[in-house]
């Protein structure tokens, strides 16, 4: 297992390096830079632009250097924990981002937990009670969840959360706690607001996972070993959980890596509708204004989540099902 762990870690290093290059090049691809956008904005407002001052700013931010130099400056800073400087906010990126990264992680991990907690029991029930009223009903609800646009569901839930529970509109906490230090009351306020975005973002994921788990389970339940187990009188719960369910879970474990970035990008629009202080809206704004270090930090953060997710799913899969496929021996 240690050899496998080492090999997977060593694969991650060039992967992240390649992603950082691609990210930086993509951010630099649009013509001009942040200052060009800034000048255009000032000129459109009829203001005079001091060219000498702009050139001084360009030199100060390192925008007059070659792309390769800018890239090394950025990457070396990242490895030191320095995310760079946000031109738009005139602050270090770490200060601009503040709690957003943490809140994004909390929101997205809670969403994944919600998806699993809801879809697993329903998927198992649907598979073991195929073509029953319960199966049809839950499948119908699942399809509604899949078909309803997230932003619409967000607006409806926001309205009912406010009318029924008095939850303030938008945000992940009461306005009083914004920019306040972390406290138990602040955490309670986040928990009070968290369920709306979690349900909104998680609904579509839940529906698709129910369908996949149901299909996987049905495949397994029709295999001969399950029929033999039932015929020989093995306890139904043991015959269900110990073998077919375990095998059905492998595709989900393999999918953890893809799930994280999908949920984060899916939550960007919901975050804008619900005014959530997460990374999504700020990333869009940073890309529009060519605030390259801010946008780059977010994109690298997303890439890291994907790579780490893949790494964890591969480790979990190797731990749970270290099986060779097909015939033939392993190479030496």
């Amino acid at each position, binding site marked *: 297992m240690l050899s496998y*762990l080492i090999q997977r870690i060593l694969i991650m290093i060039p992967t992240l390096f390649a992603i950082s290059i691609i990210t930086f090049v993509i951010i630099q691809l649009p013509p001009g830079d942040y200052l060009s956008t800034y000048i255009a904005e000032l000129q459109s407002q009829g203001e005079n632009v001091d060219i000498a001052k702009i050139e001084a700013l360009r030199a100060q931010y390192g925008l007059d250097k070659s792309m390769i130099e800018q890239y090394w400056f950025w990457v070396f800073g990242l*490895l030191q924990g320095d995310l760079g400087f946000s031109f738009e906010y005139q602050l270090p990126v770490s200060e601009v981002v503040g709690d957003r990264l943490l809140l994004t992680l909390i929101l997205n991990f809670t969403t994944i937990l919600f998806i699993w907690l809801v879809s697993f029991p329903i998927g198992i029930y649907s598979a073991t009670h195929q073509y029953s009223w319960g199966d049809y009903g839950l499948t119908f609800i699942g399809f509604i969840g899949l078909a309803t646009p997230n932003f619409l569901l967000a607006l409806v839930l926001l309205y009912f959360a406010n009318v029924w529970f008095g939850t303030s509109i938008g945000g992940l906490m009461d306005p009083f706690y914004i920019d306040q230090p972390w406290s138990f009351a602040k955490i309670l306020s986040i928990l009070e607001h968290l369920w709306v975005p979690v349900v909104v973002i998680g609904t579509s994921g839940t529906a698709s996972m129910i369908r996949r788990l149901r299909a996987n389970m049905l495949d397994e339940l029709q295999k001969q070993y399950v029929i033999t187990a039932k015929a020989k009188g093995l306890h139904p719960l043991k015959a269900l959980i110990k073998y077919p369910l375990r095998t059905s879970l492998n595709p989900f474990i393999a999918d953890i890596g893809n799930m994280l970035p999908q949920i984060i990008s899916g939550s960007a629009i919901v975050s804008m509708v619900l005014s959530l202080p997460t990374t999504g809206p700020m990333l869009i704004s940073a890309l529009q204004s060519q605030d390259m270090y801010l946008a780059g930090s977010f994109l690298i953060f997303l890439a890291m989540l994907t790579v780490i997710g893949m790494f964890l799913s591969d480790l979990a899969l190797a731990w749970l099902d270290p099986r060779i496929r097909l015939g033939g021996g392993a190479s030496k």
Partner: protein
Amino acid sequence: MKSFKYPTRSLRGDYLRATVGLLVTVGLLIAATKITIFQYLFAAGAILFLGFFLRTAQRHLTVFHIANGALYAQGPFGSSIQLCSVTDIQLRYFSTRKDRNGEGGWFELTIKCSKSKISIDSTITGFEQIMQTCKNIIQENKLTPSETTVDNFSSAGFGLENQTSFNNDLNKNQDTV
């Protein structure tokens, strides 16, 4: 007495990986101008790669013997297991390729008794002989390895179809009925 050893050629890759990992993580630690969470991660990585390097060296110096009804691992941190007291055998397959079809991967055989365990990778010379010995132990000691182990033994050409824990569950159930 049969002896088995990891050939130097098969350990070269592990030495290279450990060295590259150590160079990258230690290099980044040395280049650090301030301590952040990244430096703690690099330090953890450096310890991991150092541990891997030492384990590779330990494997390099270890010779396995099967003699007098026991398996011996002679070398640094050596141990031995009496074959008649083996309680569990696991055969796991690892590959960095998604299809796991046998190319670019390796088996890891773990033999356990109540007091100790010995792990051997398929890169060792004479791995097939060790597998055959393990198959005999499973049958003689009436062990019930996991489905994964049985599948992997079968894929490697050592069928153990009637030894699975699933069969064991069914047999236990029939006994109670």
